[in-house]
């Protein structure tokens, strides 16, 4: 009996496979409309396995991807980072930029059937997240008052205008948490944390640790007729080679962020069953750079740092080390985010210019052809960064700078960089959609804090830049902010506090049968209520 059943299943699988192979052909026939129909199961890789699924308590990347289907925020963001309605159907900002009023959707329900109201929003932003979420705390502590005007209206009153305030309502920045479950409890120790309750299109069903997380369709979802998928499995596959094979064999239908190693990307790109996109990371918009300790000689000399920018071929790095992923960076603000200024000093790849700058700065060639010696602490984040270290060493040698490579483990790297015990290193940080959230922290002198990683570890200090960033954060007039940020970027690019390398891109591979996976700037962390599967 069970044998026959298994055989039947195998036949089914074979049929499904055949259908999958035929699907792309069918889709190319013009005039064939595809309806967004119900049904289908999606298998998505999650790596590494999240420690917990309660998004208010943990915002690591994998947690965001899984919990983004369970929890929701008031807003989401289009590819150009303009706010779009989610749990808030509309919002208003007062002319002085201090009062934000949100109208909530009226039919949203928690997974346990209780209605979602303004009181949940007030509870989440003024109590829960203030205690558990560092990024949210930084934003909502700028609020003088957070109040529910009625069951479906919330008003935030700020002490002073804060430019990127709306960005703070993205799902991972401020996930809405249920007041009726958490109020008056120890948030982190609440037994309900094992069975997360949100308002999202998918409900938590089962978590087989080390293997998969199973989410099922929320039949009571507040958007009529959605979601389309029956369920989603998040598969835990710790080994990178196995993940690539899972994509090749079609056992998973989606991978994201760093799931696929850069060197596997060109191969998987050519597969007939998946499509690759690099969109959907605009909200995070990571930027990589060579971290420069500006306290140490010869790195304290601006001309030396400018020479580095000329000596390094960012296009080569993108094409040969990142296998085509990313864009050569021109300055501190990622070009897919707001307020990017492209009219700044250009550093084209030109070793001759680099040498001229070094000559000018007084670094003459010694008898062995060396002008200066520096150390480079290679970031221990895998092969790709090691290759980058080797490349930088050679590129700098070409202009007469001798670079000694140093290796360490992840803890050692954080320890040495945050305690300023390095000459050069690598780093990349997320920009969270706005310079006030993800850019200024690297360059302002207030943030020179020994022992704190991802702060101004370079020790770069320029009062003018401090002033510009401070002013730009305290206004919500976009035009004014643009001017201030442009001015700041021009100074920074001239000063080269870090040597920017790439605006990094992550590849998302999605099975061609699944549509609408990446539709916003938060891409794979979206709720997936409009993702559907094309059968046949």
């Amino acid at each position, binding site marked *: 009996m069970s044998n026959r059943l298994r055989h039947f299943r195998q036949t089914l699988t074979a049929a499904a496979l055949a259908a999958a192979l035929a699907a792309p052909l069918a889709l190319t026939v013009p005039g064939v409309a595809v309806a967004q129909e119900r049904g289908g199961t999606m298998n998505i890789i999650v790596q590494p396995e999240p420690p917990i699924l309660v998004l208010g308590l943990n915002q690591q990347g994998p947690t965001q991807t899984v919990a983004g289907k369970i929890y929701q925020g008031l807003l989401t963001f289009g590819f150009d980072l303009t706010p779009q309605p989610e749990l808030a159907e509309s919002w208003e900002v007062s002319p002085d930029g201090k009062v934000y009023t949100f109208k909530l959707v009226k039919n949203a329900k928690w997974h346990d059937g209780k209605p979602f109201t303004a009181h949940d929003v007030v509870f989440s932003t003024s109590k829960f997240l203030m205690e558990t979420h560092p990024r949210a705390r930084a934003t909502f502590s700028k609020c003088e008052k957070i109040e529910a005007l009625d069951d479906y209206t919330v008003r935030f009153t700020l002490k002073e205008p804060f430019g990127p305030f709306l960005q703070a309502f993205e799902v991972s920045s401020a996930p809405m948490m249920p007041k009726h479950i958490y109020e008056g409890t120890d948030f982190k120790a609440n037994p309900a944390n094992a069975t997360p309750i949100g308002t999202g299109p998918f409900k938590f069903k089962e978590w087989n640790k080390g293997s998969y997380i199973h989410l099922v369709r929320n039949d009571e979802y507040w958007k009529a007729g959605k979601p389309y998928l029956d369920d989603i499995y998040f598969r835990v596959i710790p080994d990178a080679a196995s993940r690539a094979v899972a994509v090749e064999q079609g056992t998973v239908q989606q991978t994201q962020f760093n799931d696929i*190693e850069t*060197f596997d990307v*060109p*191969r998987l790109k050519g597969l007939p069953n998946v499509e690759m996109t690099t969109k959907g990371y605009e909200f995070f918009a990571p930027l990589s750079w060579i971290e420069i300790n500006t306290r140490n000689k010869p790195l304290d000399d601006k001309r030396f740092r400018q020479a580095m920018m000329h000596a390094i071929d960012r296009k080569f790095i993108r094409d*040969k*080390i990142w296998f085509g992923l990313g864009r050569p960076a021109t300055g501190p603000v990622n070009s897919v985010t707001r307020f990017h200024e492209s009219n700044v000093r250009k550093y084209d790849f030109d070793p001759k210019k680099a040498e001229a700058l070094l000559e000018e700065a007084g670094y003459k060639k010694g008898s062995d052809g060396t002008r200066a010696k520096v150390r480079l602490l*290679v970031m221990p984040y895998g*092969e790709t960064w*090691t*290759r980058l*270290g*080797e*490349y930088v*060493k*050679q590129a700098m*040698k070409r202009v007469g700078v001798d670079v*000694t*490579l*140093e*290796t*360490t*483990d992840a803890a050692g790297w954080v320890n040495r960089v945050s305690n300023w015990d390095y000459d050069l290193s690598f780093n990349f940080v997320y920009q969270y959609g706005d310079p006030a959230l993800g850019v200024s922290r690297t360059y302002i002198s207030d943030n020179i804090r020994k022992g704190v990683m991802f702060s101004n570890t370079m020790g770069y200090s320029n009062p003018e830049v401090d002033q510009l960033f401070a002013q730009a954060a305290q206004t919500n007039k976009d035009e004014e902010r643009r001017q201030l940020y442009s001015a700041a970027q021009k100074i920074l690019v001239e000063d080269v506090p870090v040597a920017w390398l790439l605006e990094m891109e992550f590849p998302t591979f999605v099975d061609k049968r699944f549509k609408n996976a990446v539709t916003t700037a938060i891409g794979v962390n979206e709720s997936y209520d409009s993702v559907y599967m094309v059968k046949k």
Partner: protein
Amino acid sequence: MTAAAIAPARKGSGFWGAFARNKGAVIGLAFLTLIVLMAAFADVLYPDSPWDMTAMPFQPPLSEDALLGSDTLGRDIAAGIAHGARVSLLIGLTSTAVAVLIGVFLGAVSGFYGGRVDDLVMRFTELFQTIPNFVLAVVLVAIFTPSLTSIVLAIAIVSWPPLARLARGEFMSLRSREFVHAAVTTGQSNMTIIWRQILPNSLSPIIVSASLMVATAILLESSLSFLGLGDPNLMSWGYMVGAARTVIRQAWWMSFFPGIAILLTVLALNLVGEGLNDALNPKLARKGRS
């Protein structure tokens, strides 16, 4: 102080005769000479640094600017192999030398004095023998951060115990021989007896196992570099294989040629070691063959 120094003690041309009788050993020696020459003339053959990106990346073998192809960053594989030979041989020889020093010293003391000293030294040796070699080497290199010195020392530290045991056995058996007793009665000091009387007579097995140990050391170094624990500023074969393994499906040559280099060198060393064994321990060798 190698074979040539001992040869006169044995029968004239006997050493070379015995060595040459083993065809494999001669081939091994020829190949080893070739590798040593390649290492010695690496700077002449490839004057640029092996890290220099001289060619287009991903060039297959027999390309115009890269005989054995180029790697992911456009570095010449052939240049890497030539310069890598230096690192491999250097690490192989120096770490073996250090291991021989430690091993023979401890073994000699242990075998000569016996009793308590022997117990103490042998328990200490066993301590090292119980820990898997490679794991200990990885831990040592990771702790002392990868550099040429830390790698040489780590390999030496995991390699000396077998030598200590071998030297101890030799010393123990020679200790009771007449010529040693004679030396004792003539009033020679212990140091002189160890150094002048016993050591020269126990050298042949030590030389044989040291020659094999060079091969093991090269393998250990390659494995460490493969895992990314090599000196990041030195080009080595293990590093080349390790760095290229990620693209092995697109570009086989990047890991194939350095892999072959490791294989042939280790094989050559083993063949030479066997030849030395035949030449220096004729009795043992004959027993082994029959």
